[in-house]
């Protein structure tokens, strides 16, 4: 058996920060090889070194036994390596076909007829179907993922690197994707998958490599390990299972009736949604990305117009402004941290009161109560273990995970009634993710209610008291007896039931 990829003693420094330290990776040809680890473990960095996007500070790379050295991704692509990054590189304004050939055009003049016939061939080979002249903005996330894979095949990639390929897919689509990847490996391709979803690794991959803190922890065939062992190696300590805290729901806190919210394209992104959240419960919304979760949160926060009714207790918030909603106790952990949650050029202390600037304790006459601000700055950095120098430090200089912890902690300040949490644990490691959920649950047990959107079904099944499913803008509740039935919820997510 040949080694498609050998990375030997890879060290990568960013300035003085060591992202990778003496990491070895051997991938056998024709295998699906998983790279697992927590955020910041160096998975993506290692893959980018292989892909030529980063240059290793030390170490050697061999492809099929031959030493190679890539100065940039172009050279890696020429050598048959392709990578799909976590954030898709599809340009929504171009057609699917234009996206497919982008960056690897056959010549200065593009013959779309010839391109289409080759595109069809590749799609047929994979069992995908595409309307090549459709604008890429029209296609679903799972179609997008398929298009990304076809882009690699278009470039004749033999070694495929996929970074979190199933993050945006429903369970069934994820299974389908792996089935296709297996077909590819049978035809001689080699696949590297960066993921944090262990069930996926166990079910679909041949080998697994665990990284932690930029170092290689272990590399072994999947058949010789188990999820608990992998989790322990990833985290570096035994992972305690979350033990559910009994939920005693109180009165209805947030009542939403017949909510209709328009999407960006003028369609009804949320269709006639009605649900109630009770004091004392953590409710999750499961669903594939793009099924109206975003628009629902915008409407609840009052940043997008909606029709229907929204009540907090007996206070009618239907036509309330965002400021009035915050005043009433609604808090948001926004989806898009950079653009919606913080001002990165500001200090931690100034961001600590963003959104809370007109709440009772913060506002003193016309100015801001500096004592309250100092107290909040302390709270938002100490609620969860956050690495920072001082609260006057620029927010931008925090790492992504630490930024997310501050944003999550801020939503729990000044007696929240309803916390709307959009992927609250995005970018933070398993251990702290647990703490964040514990923090949210604690808030509910003190009388608040929390609504969580996550694309990670396992996470929702672990922590939520109830689960709602959102599919094409419609909201349905998962019956109590199915709350631990992964595949049943998965079917509801795609409307199969």
């Amino acid at each position, binding site marked *: 058996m040949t080694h498609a990829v050998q990375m030997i003693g890879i060290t990568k420094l960013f300035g003085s920060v060591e992202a990778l330290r003496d990491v070895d990776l051997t991938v056998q040809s024709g295998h699906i090889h998983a790279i697992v680890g927590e955020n910041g473990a160096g998975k993506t960095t290692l893959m980018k070194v292989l892909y030529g996007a980063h240059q290793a500070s030390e170490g050697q790379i061999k492809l099929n036994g031959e030493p190679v050295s890539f100065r940039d991704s172009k050279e890696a692509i020429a050598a048959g390596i392709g990578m799909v990054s976590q954030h898709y590189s599809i340009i929504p304004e171009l057609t699917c076909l234009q996206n497919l050939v982008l960056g690897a055009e056959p010549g200065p003049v593009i013959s779309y007829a010839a391109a289409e016939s080759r595109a069809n061939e590749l799609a047929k080979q994979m069992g995908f179907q595409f309307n090549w002249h459709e604008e890429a903005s029209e296609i679903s996330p799972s179609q997008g993922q398929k298009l990304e894979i076809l882009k690699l095949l278009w470039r004749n990639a033999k070694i495929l690197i996929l970074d979190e390929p199933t993050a945006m897919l429903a369970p069934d689509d994820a299974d389908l994707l792996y089935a296709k990847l297996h077909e590819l490996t049978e035809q001689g391709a080699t696949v590297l998958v960066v993921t944090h979803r262990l069930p996926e690794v166990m079910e679909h991959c041949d080998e697994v490599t665990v990284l932690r803190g930029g170092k290689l922890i272990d590399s072994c065939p999947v058949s010789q390990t188990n999820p608990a062992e992998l989790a322990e190696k990833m985290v570096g300590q035994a992972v305690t299972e979350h033990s559910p805290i009994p939920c005693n729901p109180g009165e209805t806190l947030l009542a939403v009736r017949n909510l209709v919210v328009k999407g960006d394209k003028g369609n009804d992104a949320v269709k006639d949604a009605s649900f109630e959240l009770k004091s004392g419960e953590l409710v999750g919304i499961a669903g594939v990305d793009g099924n109206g979760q975003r628009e629902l949160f915008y409407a609840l*926060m009052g*940043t997008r117009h909606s029709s229907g009714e929204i009540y907090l207790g007996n206070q009618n918030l239907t036509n309330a*402004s*965002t*400021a*009035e*909603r*915050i*005043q009433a106790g609604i808090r*948001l952990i*926004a989806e898009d941290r*950079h*653009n*919606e*949650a*913080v*001002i*990165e*050029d*500001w200090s931690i202390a*100034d961001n600590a*009161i*963003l*959104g809370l*600037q*007109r709440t009772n304790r913060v*506002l003193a006459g*016309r*100015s*801001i109560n500096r004592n309250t601000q100092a107290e909040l700055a302390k709270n938002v950095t100490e609620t969860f273990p956050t690495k920072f120098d001082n609260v006057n430090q620029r927010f*931008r200089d*925090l*790492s*992504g995970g630490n*930024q997310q912890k501050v944003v999550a902690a801020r939503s729990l300040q000044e007696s929240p009634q309803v916390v709307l949490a959009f992927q609250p644990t995005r*970018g933070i490691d398993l251990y702290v993710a647990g703490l964040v959920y514990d923090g949210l649950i604690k808030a509910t047990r003190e009388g608040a209610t929390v609504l969580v959107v996550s694309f990670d079904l396992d996470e929702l099944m672990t922590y939520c008291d109830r689960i709602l499913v959102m599919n094409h803008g419609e909201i349905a509740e998962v019956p109590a007896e199915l709350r631990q039935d992964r595949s049943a919820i998965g079917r509801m997510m795609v409307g199969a039931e």
Partner: protein
Amino acid sequence: MSWKQILLALAGFGVVIGALIVAGAVPSDALQTVIQKALTTPAGWRDILRETTPLLLLGCSVFLALKAGLFNIGADGQFVVGAMASVAVALQNFGPLTIPLAIVVGTLAGGLWALPVGLIKAYRGGHEVITTIMLNNIAFFLSVFLVKGVLKDPESQSPTTAYIAEAAKLPNLVQNGPFRLNIALLFAIAVALALWWYLKRTVGGYELNATGANSKAAKFAGIQIEKVIVRSMTTSGAIAGLAGALQVLAYENRFYSGFSPGYGFDALGVALLAGGSPLALLGSGLLFGIIGKSTTVLSLTGVPKGLSFILLGILVIVFASFRYRKEPSHD
């Protein structure tokens, strides 16, 4: 100060020397002229402070808009409109109310001139740079039309209004030989201090800063960004209008075709150079005042006036390229 900044300062110095040589002047002579005629004489300082007044006020105007994320290219037009409205009032006799009324009307006129810019930006998404440039042209040609028409001094051959009455002029605070310090400069300093207080201390200022820094995040933080945009644009225009009123009442005492030598554009430099702090406007306003006066002095020795504009342009570009460079963000 890092070695980079020192190098930059030296390079800047080199550019100035080089420019002087190209202009046909001996650098040491030029420097001597500036020191002797501008920086060490009471008359020189009179002119520097006079020049500083509109530059500081218009700097405040541009600075405020900039903090709200708006590039007010229209300060010049608002300045002209303010001056014109103010002179129209000051030419009448309202007794002791003449000065206050002329100031208020000039300020309001500047604000009103900027109001549509704010409205169009906030509710229709029209870019403020385009609308303010258009309004600058309208303001300029409107002023020409008026000083050739209804506002024209019948006694004069050229397109100008009559001079305002002695009682309508803002008094000098200090008058010592050729030196003058008009009360208008105190107005300007007061506005800069008020701006500092508003932006750094009040919740309104906090929200204005948030809107300018990240309007989407501001929206999610419950800030009504449309209102903030309209309010800051209008206030920015009002400050520019105030500058126009003071220019009439304190220094020019009349309005004429070509009233502004482009103060509104120099003010962009004043505001950019001040960087983050409104208090720094006091320094950058004075610096631009000194450069303005130095240019006038140098032009007497044959160095073309355009040189100072080149110098200011380079200064602003270099400064902006350092201050507004893009930084990577974490994920």
